Protein backbone atom coordinates (compact mmCIF):
# COMPACT_ATOMS: atom_id res chain seq x y z
CA UNK A 1 0.00 0.00 0.00
CA UNK A 2 1.43 3.37 -0.92
CA UNK A 3 0.86 6.05 1.69
CA UNK A 4 0.89 8.90 -0.84
CA UNK A 5 -2.17 8.86 -3.11
CA UNK A 6 -2.16 10.71 -6.45
CA UNK A 7 -5.08 12.97 -5.39
CA UNK A 8 -6.29 14.25 -2.03
CA UNK A 9 -8.45 11.75 -0.17
CA UNK A 10 -11.39 12.90 1.92
CA UNK A 11 -12.58 10.63 4.73
CA UNK A 12 -14.71 8.40 2.50
CA UNK A 13 -11.95 8.16 -0.10
CA UNK A 14 -9.38 7.36 2.58
CA UNK A 15 -11.53 4.56 4.00
CA UNK A 16 -12.19 3.10 0.55
CA UNK A 17 -8.50 3.06 -0.27
CA UNK A 18 -6.87 2.34 3.09
CA UNK A 19 -9.61 0.71 5.16
CA UNK A 20 -10.92 1.41 8.65
CA UNK A 21 -8.88 1.10 11.85
CA UNK A 22 -10.04 -2.08 13.66
CA UNK A 23 -10.50 -0.34 17.01
CA UNK A 24 -12.30 -3.29 18.64
CA UNK A 25 -9.15 -5.37 18.28
CA UNK A 26 -7.25 -2.87 20.41
CA UNK A 27 -9.86 -2.22 23.08
CA UNK A 28 -8.80 -1.89 26.74
CA UNK A 29 -5.41 -2.26 28.40
CA UNK A 30 -4.56 -5.57 26.69
CA UNK A 31 -5.52 -3.89 23.45
CA UNK A 32 -2.97 -1.15 24.03
CA UNK A 33 -0.32 -3.80 24.60
CA UNK A 34 -1.35 -5.60 21.41
CA UNK A 35 -1.17 -2.33 19.51
CA UNK A 36 2.39 -1.60 20.66
CA UNK A 37 3.33 -5.22 19.89
CA UNK A 38 1.91 -4.82 16.38
CA UNK A 39 3.98 -1.66 15.86
CA UNK A 40 7.03 -3.57 17.08
CA UNK A 41 6.31 -6.52 14.80
CA UNK A 42 5.99 -4.11 11.86
CA UNK A 43 9.55 -2.95 12.55
CA UNK A 44 8.51 0.69 12.44
CA UNK A 45 11.18 3.35 12.93
CA UNK A 46 10.87 7.13 13.17
CA UNK A 47 10.91 9.05 9.87
CA UNK A 48 11.98 12.39 11.27
CA UNK A 49 15.64 11.56 10.71
CA UNK A 50 16.49 9.79 13.98
CA UNK A 51 15.35 6.33 12.93
CA UNK A 52 14.47 5.36 16.50
CA UNK A 53 12.20 2.27 16.95
CA UNK A 54 8.65 3.62 17.35
CA UNK A 55 7.50 0.85 19.72
CA UNK A 56 10.26 1.74 22.20
CA UNK A 57 9.17 5.37 22.07
CA UNK A 58 5.52 4.43 22.61
CA UNK A 59 6.40 2.36 25.67
CA UNK A 60 8.48 5.19 27.13
CA UNK A 61 5.64 7.72 26.90
CA UNK A 62 2.87 5.50 28.34
CA UNK A 63 0.88 7.23 31.01
CA UNK A 64 -2.76 8.19 31.48
CA UNK A 65 -2.31 11.89 30.99
CA UNK A 66 0.17 12.16 28.16
CA UNK A 67 0.17 14.17 24.96
CA UNK A 68 0.97 13.17 21.37
CA UNK A 69 2.60 15.75 19.14
CA UNK A 70 2.58 15.11 15.39
CA UNK A 71 5.52 16.93 13.82
CA UNK A 72 4.52 18.18 10.38
CA UNK A 73 6.98 21.09 10.33
CA UNK A 74 9.54 20.95 7.57
CA UNK A 75 12.38 23.25 8.49
CA UNK A 76 14.63 21.77 5.81
CA UNK A 77 14.18 23.71 2.55
CA UNK A 78 14.90 20.53 0.55
CA UNK A 79 12.10 18.48 2.14
CA UNK A 80 8.44 18.49 1.11
CA UNK A 81 7.35 14.95 1.99
CA UNK A 82 5.42 15.81 5.15
CA UNK A 83 3.56 18.64 3.40
CA UNK A 84 2.72 16.28 0.52
CA UNK A 85 1.37 13.72 2.96
CA UNK A 86 -0.77 16.26 4.85
CA UNK A 87 -2.07 17.70 1.58
CA UNK A 88 -2.96 14.36 -0.04
CA UNK A 89 -3.60 11.89 2.79
CA UNK A 90 -4.39 13.84 5.98
CA UNK A 91 -6.67 11.09 7.32
CA UNK A 92 -3.92 8.49 7.29
CA UNK A 93 -1.82 10.83 9.45
CA UNK A 94 -4.73 11.48 11.83
CA UNK A 95 -5.49 7.73 12.05
CA UNK A 96 -1.86 7.26 13.09
CA UNK A 97 -2.16 10.09 15.58
CA UNK A 98 -5.24 8.51 17.14
CA UNK A 99 -3.57 5.09 17.27
CA UNK A 100 -0.49 6.54 18.96
CA UNK A 101 -2.72 8.42 21.41
CA UNK A 102 -4.56 5.21 22.26
CA UNK A 103 -1.31 3.25 22.63
CA UNK A 104 0.12 5.64 25.23
CA UNK A 105 -3.15 6.69 26.89
CA UNK A 106 -2.97 10.29 25.70
CA UNK A 107 -5.82 12.68 26.41
CA UNK A 108 -4.64 15.37 24.04
CA UNK A 109 -2.97 15.55 20.63
CA UNK A 110 -1.41 18.41 18.71
CA UNK A 111 -0.71 18.48 14.99
CA UNK A 112 2.13 20.93 14.28
CA UNK A 113 2.60 22.57 10.89
CA UNK A 114 4.61 25.59 9.72
CA UNK A 115 2.91 28.95 10.23
CA UNK A 116 0.79 29.80 7.19
CA UNK A 117 1.50 26.38 5.65
CA UNK A 118 -0.39 25.66 2.41
CA UNK A 119 -1.52 22.35 3.95
CA UNK A 120 -3.64 24.08 6.61
CA UNK A 121 -6.91 23.97 4.60
CA UNK A 122 -6.44 20.24 3.89
CA UNK A 123 -5.76 19.47 7.54
CA UNK A 124 -8.59 21.65 8.87
CA UNK A 125 -11.08 20.11 6.43
CA UNK A 126 -9.95 16.59 7.39
CA UNK A 127 -10.39 17.22 11.11
CA UNK A 128 -13.88 18.67 10.53
CA UNK A 129 -14.92 15.40 8.85
CA UNK A 130 -13.89 13.22 11.77
CA UNK A 131 -15.26 12.37 15.16
CA UNK A 132 -12.18 11.27 17.06
CA UNK A 133 -12.06 10.12 20.66
CA UNK A 134 -9.03 12.23 21.46
CA UNK A 135 -9.27 15.83 20.28
CA UNK A 136 -6.70 17.09 17.78
CA UNK A 137 -5.51 20.68 17.98
CA UNK A 138 -3.59 22.32 15.15
CA UNK A 139 -0.58 24.43 16.17
CA UNK A 140 1.23 26.72 13.76
CA UNK A 141 4.96 26.78 14.48
CA UNK A 142 7.26 29.65 13.44
CA UNK A 143 9.15 28.76 10.27
CA UNK A 144 12.66 28.19 11.50
CA UNK A 145 15.07 25.42 10.69
CA UNK A 146 15.57 24.33 14.31
CA UNK A 147 11.90 24.83 15.32
CA UNK A 148 11.03 21.34 14.05
CA UNK A 149 13.52 19.78 16.46
CA UNK A 150 11.69 17.71 19.06
CA UNK A 151 12.59 19.73 22.16
CA UNK A 152 11.95 23.02 20.31
CA UNK A 153 8.39 21.91 19.53
CA UNK A 154 7.82 20.94 23.15
CA UNK A 155 9.26 24.27 24.29
CA UNK A 156 7.04 26.20 21.88
CA UNK A 157 3.85 24.37 22.88
CA UNK A 158 4.64 25.01 26.54
CA UNK A 159 5.90 28.57 26.44
CA UNK A 160 5.56 30.02 22.94
CA UNK A 161 9.33 29.98 22.43
CA UNK A 162 10.45 27.73 19.55
CA UNK A 163 14.06 27.24 20.66
CA UNK A 164 15.52 23.81 21.47
CA UNK A 165 15.70 22.95 25.16
CA UNK A 166 18.55 20.47 25.17
CA UNK A 167 18.68 16.72 25.54
CA UNK A 168 17.42 16.34 29.10
CA UNK A 169 14.80 15.65 30.24
CA UNK A 170 13.41 13.65 27.31
CA UNK A 171 9.89 14.75 26.23
CA UNK A 172 8.66 11.24 27.17
CA UNK A 173 9.47 12.11 30.80
CA UNK A 174 8.66 15.83 30.91
CA UNK A 175 7.26 17.27 27.72
CA UNK A 176 4.50 19.76 26.91
CA UNK A 177 3.46 21.55 30.16
CA UNK A 178 5.48 18.95 32.06
CA UNK A 179 3.38 16.05 30.80
CA UNK A 180 4.85 12.89 29.22
CA UNK A 181 4.87 13.67 25.50
CA UNK A 182 5.35 11.55 22.41
CA UNK A 183 6.70 13.54 19.45
CA UNK A 184 6.47 11.72 16.14
CA UNK A 185 6.99 12.90 12.58
CA UNK A 186 3.78 12.87 10.50
CA UNK A 187 5.21 10.31 8.10
CA UNK A 188 5.95 8.03 11.06
CA UNK A 189 2.30 8.32 12.11
CA UNK A 190 1.07 7.60 8.58
CA UNK A 191 3.36 4.56 8.49
CA UNK A 192 2.01 3.48 11.88
CA UNK A 193 -1.57 3.69 10.60
CA UNK A 194 -0.55 1.80 7.49
CA UNK A 195 1.10 -0.94 9.59
CA UNK A 196 -2.11 -1.37 11.61
CA UNK A 197 -4.40 -1.24 8.57
CA UNK A 198 -2.34 -3.78 6.63
CA UNK A 199 -1.26 -5.87 9.61
CA UNK A 200 2.44 -6.06 10.58
CA UNK A 201 3.14 -9.01 8.32
CA UNK A 202 1.84 -7.45 5.11
CA UNK A 203 3.26 -4.10 6.08
CA UNK A 204 6.78 -5.49 6.38
CA UNK A 205 6.56 -6.86 2.86
CA UNK A 206 4.94 -3.75 1.34
CA UNK A 207 6.41 -0.82 3.25
CA UNK A 208 7.69 2.23 1.45
CA UNK A 209 9.78 5.36 1.93
CA UNK A 210 8.96 8.94 0.94
CA UNK A 211 11.81 11.01 -0.47
CA UNK A 212 11.79 14.59 -1.77
CA UNK A 213 13.98 14.86 -4.88
CA UNK A 214 15.18 18.22 -6.21
CA UNK A 215 17.99 19.49 -8.40
CA UNK A 216 18.87 18.22 -11.86
CA UNK A 217 16.05 15.69 -12.27
CA UNK A 218 13.25 15.70 -14.83
CA UNK A 219 10.30 15.67 -12.40
CA UNK A 220 11.38 17.09 -9.05
CA UNK A 221 9.03 16.33 -6.17
CA UNK A 222 8.11 13.72 -3.61
CA UNK A 223 8.48 10.09 -4.68
CA UNK A 224 7.42 6.91 -2.92
CA UNK A 225 9.46 3.72 -3.33
CA UNK A 226 9.77 0.31 -1.68
CA UNK A 227 11.63 0.81 1.62
CA UNK A 228 15.40 1.30 1.51
CA UNK A 229 15.76 2.31 -2.16
CA UNK A 230 19.14 3.01 -3.74
CA UNK A 231 19.95 6.55 -4.85
CA UNK A 232 19.78 5.33 -8.45
CA UNK A 233 16.19 4.16 -7.89
CA UNK A 234 15.25 7.44 -6.19
CA UNK A 235 16.63 9.54 -9.06
CA UNK A 236 14.90 7.29 -11.61
CA UNK A 237 11.58 7.74 -9.78
CA UNK A 238 12.01 11.50 -10.22
CA UNK A 239 12.28 11.08 -13.98
CA UNK A 240 16.05 10.60 -14.09
CA UNK A 241 18.83 13.13 -14.47
CA UNK A 242 18.49 16.09 -16.83
CA UNK A 243 22.27 16.20 -17.28
CA UNK A 244 25.29 14.33 -15.88
CA UNK A 245 25.48 14.62 -12.11
CA UNK A 246 28.49 15.59 -10.08
CA UNK A 247 27.25 14.49 -6.66
CA UNK A 248 24.05 14.08 -4.63
CA UNK A 249 23.29 15.72 -1.30
CA UNK A 250 21.62 13.04 0.81
CA UNK A 251 19.57 14.01 3.85
CA UNK A 252 18.79 17.68 3.27
CA UNK A 253 20.74 20.73 4.42
CA UNK A 254 22.38 18.90 7.33
CA UNK A 255 23.13 15.91 5.12
CA UNK A 256 26.09 14.38 3.30
CA UNK A 257 27.42 14.72 -0.25
CA UNK A 258 28.05 11.46 -2.05
CA UNK A 259 28.95 10.24 -5.52
CA UNK A 260 28.01 6.63 -4.82
CA UNK A 261 24.61 6.15 -6.43
CA UNK A 262 24.36 2.54 -5.25
CA UNK A 263 24.00 3.89 -1.72
CA UNK A 264 20.89 2.51 0.01
CA UNK A 265 18.62 5.11 1.58
CA UNK A 266 16.46 4.52 4.57
CA UNK A 267 14.51 7.18 6.39
CA UNK A 268 16.17 9.89 4.26
CA UNK A 269 13.67 12.75 3.78
CA UNK A 270 15.36 14.58 0.89
CA UNK A 271 18.03 14.36 -1.79
CA UNK A 272 19.39 17.09 -4.05
CA UNK A 273 21.04 16.22 -7.37
CA UNK A 274 23.92 18.55 -8.20
CA UNK A 275 24.61 18.78 -11.94
CA UNK A 276 28.19 18.60 -13.20
CA UNK A 277 27.82 22.19 -14.43
CA UNK A 278 27.37 23.61 -10.90
CA UNK A 279 29.94 24.26 -8.19
CA UNK A 280 29.43 22.03 -5.16
CA UNK A 281 31.55 24.28 -2.97
CA UNK A 282 29.47 27.31 -3.89
CA UNK A 283 26.23 25.43 -3.17
CA UNK A 284 27.61 24.21 0.17
CA UNK A 285 28.71 27.75 1.09
CA UNK A 286 25.14 28.99 0.50
CA UNK A 287 23.65 26.21 2.60
CA UNK A 288 26.14 26.85 5.41
CA UNK A 289 25.26 30.56 5.39
CA UNK A 290 21.60 29.57 5.74
CA UNK A 291 22.33 27.14 8.59
CA UNK A 292 24.43 29.75 10.39
CA UNK A 293 21.58 32.26 10.17
CA UNK A 294 19.17 29.64 11.52
CA UNK A 295 21.12 28.96 14.74
CA UNK A 296 18.95 29.59 17.77
CA UNK A 297 21.97 31.44 19.21
CA UNK A 298 21.86 29.75 22.59
CA UNK A 299 25.04 27.68 22.51
CA UNK A 300 28.47 29.22 21.92
CA UNK A 301 29.85 26.56 19.56
CA UNK A 302 26.74 26.97 17.37
CA UNK A 303 26.36 30.76 17.65
CA UNK A 304 30.03 31.44 16.81
CA UNK A 305 31.09 28.20 15.14
CA UNK A 306 28.51 28.12 12.33
CA UNK A 307 29.14 31.68 11.07
CA UNK A 308 32.88 30.89 11.21
CA UNK A 309 32.66 27.80 9.03
CA UNK A 310 30.20 29.56 6.69
CA UNK A 311 32.75 32.37 6.30
CA UNK A 312 35.50 29.80 5.78
CA UNK A 313 33.52 28.25 2.94
CA UNK A 314 32.79 31.62 1.35
CA UNK A 315 36.52 32.32 1.50
CA UNK A 316 37.33 28.92 0.04
CA UNK A 317 35.09 29.64 -2.96
CA UNK A 318 36.95 32.93 -3.48
CA UNK A 319 40.26 31.06 -3.36
CA UNK A 320 41.40 31.78 0.21
CA UNK A 321 43.36 29.31 2.34
CA UNK A 322 40.48 28.38 4.63
CA UNK A 323 40.95 24.62 4.39
CA UNK A 324 43.36 24.41 7.31
CA UNK A 325 41.06 26.38 9.57
CA UNK A 326 38.17 24.12 8.58
CA UNK A 327 40.18 20.98 9.32
CA UNK A 328 40.64 22.31 12.83
CA UNK A 329 37.14 23.75 13.34
CA UNK A 330 34.84 21.10 11.91
CA UNK A 331 35.62 18.27 14.37
CA UNK A 332 35.20 20.79 17.19
CA UNK A 333 31.54 21.55 16.39
CA UNK A 334 30.13 18.05 16.63
CA UNK A 335 28.22 17.14 19.79
CA UNK A 336 28.68 20.54 21.40
CA UNK A 337 25.24 22.11 20.93
CA UNK A 338 22.07 21.45 22.87
CA UNK A 339 20.61 20.10 19.64
CA UNK A 340 22.12 18.46 16.56
CA UNK A 341 22.08 21.65 14.45
CA UNK A 342 25.87 22.25 14.54
CA UNK A 343 26.49 18.53 13.94
CA UNK A 344 24.52 18.68 10.69
CA UNK A 345 26.39 21.74 9.45
CA UNK A 346 29.77 20.19 10.30
CA UNK A 347 28.77 16.94 8.57
CA UNK A 348 27.73 18.81 5.41
CA UNK A 349 30.94 20.86 5.34
CA UNK A 350 33.21 17.86 5.93
CA UNK A 351 31.51 15.83 3.20
CA UNK A 352 31.83 18.75 0.76
CA UNK A 353 35.59 18.93 1.37
CA UNK A 354 35.84 15.18 0.75
CA UNK A 355 33.57 15.06 -2.29
CA UNK A 356 34.79 18.23 -4.01
CA UNK A 357 38.43 17.84 -3.01
CA UNK A 358 39.70 18.44 -6.54
CA UNK A 359 37.66 21.65 -6.77
CA UNK A 360 39.09 22.84 -3.45
CA UNK A 361 42.55 22.60 -5.00
CA UNK A 362 41.59 24.51 -8.18
CA UNK A 363 39.80 27.21 -6.21
CA UNK A 364 42.88 27.68 -4.07
CA UNK A 365 45.17 27.79 -7.05
CA UNK A 366 43.29 30.42 -9.00
CA UNK A 367 40.40 31.74 -6.95
CA UNK A 368 38.12 30.22 -9.57
CA UNK A 369 37.15 26.78 -10.65
CA UNK A 370 36.26 24.88 -13.79
CA UNK A 371 32.58 25.73 -13.27
CA UNK A 372 33.05 29.49 -12.90
CA UNK A 373 35.39 29.46 -15.87
CA UNK A 374 32.77 27.72 -17.94
CA UNK A 375 34.97 24.80 -18.89
CA UNK A 376 32.81 22.16 -17.21
Amino acid at each position, binding site marked *: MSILPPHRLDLAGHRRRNGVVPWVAYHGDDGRDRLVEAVEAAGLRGRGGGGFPTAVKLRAARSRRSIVVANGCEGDPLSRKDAALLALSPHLVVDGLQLAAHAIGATETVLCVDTGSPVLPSVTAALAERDDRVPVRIAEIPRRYVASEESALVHFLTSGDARPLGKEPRPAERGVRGRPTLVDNVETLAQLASAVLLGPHHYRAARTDLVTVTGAVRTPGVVELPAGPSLTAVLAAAGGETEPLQAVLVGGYGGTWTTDLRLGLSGIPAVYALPASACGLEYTAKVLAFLAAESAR*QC*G*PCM*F*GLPSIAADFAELVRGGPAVHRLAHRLPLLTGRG*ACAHPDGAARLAASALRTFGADVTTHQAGGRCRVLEGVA
Partner: protein
Amino acid sequence: MKLSVDPIACRGHGLCADLLPELVRLDEWGYPVVAAGPVPPELAAETRRAANACPALALRLRKA
Protein backbone atom coordinates in the same frame (compact mmCIF):
# COMPACT_ATOMS: atom_id res chain seq x y z
CA MET B 1 31.99 10.43 37.32
CA LYS B 2 31.47 12.25 34.05
CA LEU B 3 31.93 15.94 33.42
CA SER B 4 29.79 17.76 30.88
CA VAL B 5 28.75 21.27 29.90
CA ASP B 6 25.17 22.42 29.45
CA PRO B 7 25.69 24.39 26.22
CA ILE B 8 22.58 26.55 26.69
CA ALA B 9 23.45 27.58 30.26
CA CYS B 10 27.16 28.13 29.58
CA ARG B 11 28.09 31.82 29.15
CA GLY B 12 31.67 31.19 28.10
CA HIS B 13 33.27 32.81 31.14
CA GLY B 14 36.14 30.38 30.84
CA LEU B 15 36.60 30.00 34.58
CA CYS B 16 36.38 26.21 34.29
CA ALA B 17 39.47 26.04 32.06
CA ASP B 18 41.41 28.06 34.64
CA LEU B 19 40.33 25.86 37.52
CA LEU B 20 40.60 22.52 35.75
CA PRO B 21 43.04 22.74 32.84
CA GLU B 22 43.59 18.96 33.02
CA LEU B 23 40.06 18.29 31.73
CA VAL B 24 38.82 21.55 30.21
CA ARG B 25 40.23 23.65 27.43
CA LEU B 26 38.59 26.56 25.65
CA ASP B 27 37.78 26.70 21.95
CA GLU B 28 38.70 29.76 19.93
CA TRP B 29 35.42 31.43 20.95
CA GLY B 30 36.05 30.94 24.66
CA TYR B 31 33.67 27.99 25.19
CA PRO B 32 34.77 24.91 27.12
CA VAL B 33 35.70 21.62 25.46
CA VAL B 34 35.59 18.86 28.05
CA ALA B 35 37.84 15.79 27.83
CA ALA B 36 35.90 12.64 26.90
CA GLY B 37 35.67 9.68 29.26
CA PRO B 38 35.30 9.40 33.02
CA VAL B 39 36.92 11.83 35.46
CA PRO B 40 40.15 10.28 36.82
CA PRO B 41 39.74 9.59 40.58
CA GLU B 42 42.71 11.78 41.52
CA LEU B 43 40.94 14.77 39.93
CA ALA B 44 37.55 14.13 41.55
CA ALA B 45 37.88 16.81 44.23
CA GLU B 46 39.21 19.43 41.81
CA THR B 47 36.46 18.63 39.36
CA ARG B 48 33.78 19.03 42.01
CA ARG B 49 35.29 22.37 43.00
CA ALA B 50 35.30 23.61 39.39
CA ALA B 51 31.67 22.53 38.87
CA ASN B 52 30.62 24.42 41.98
CA ALA B 53 32.53 27.50 40.89
CA CYS B 54 30.88 27.83 37.45
CA PRO B 55 28.90 31.08 37.71
CA ALA B 56 26.25 29.78 35.29
CA LEU B 57 26.02 26.34 36.93
CA ALA B 58 26.66 24.97 33.45
CA LEU B 59 29.45 22.60 34.38
CA ARG B 60 27.78 19.36 35.40
CA LEU B 61 29.09 16.31 37.17
CA ARG B 62 27.19 13.08 36.83
CA LYS B 63 27.69 9.61 38.18
CA ALA B 64 28.85 7.65 35.16
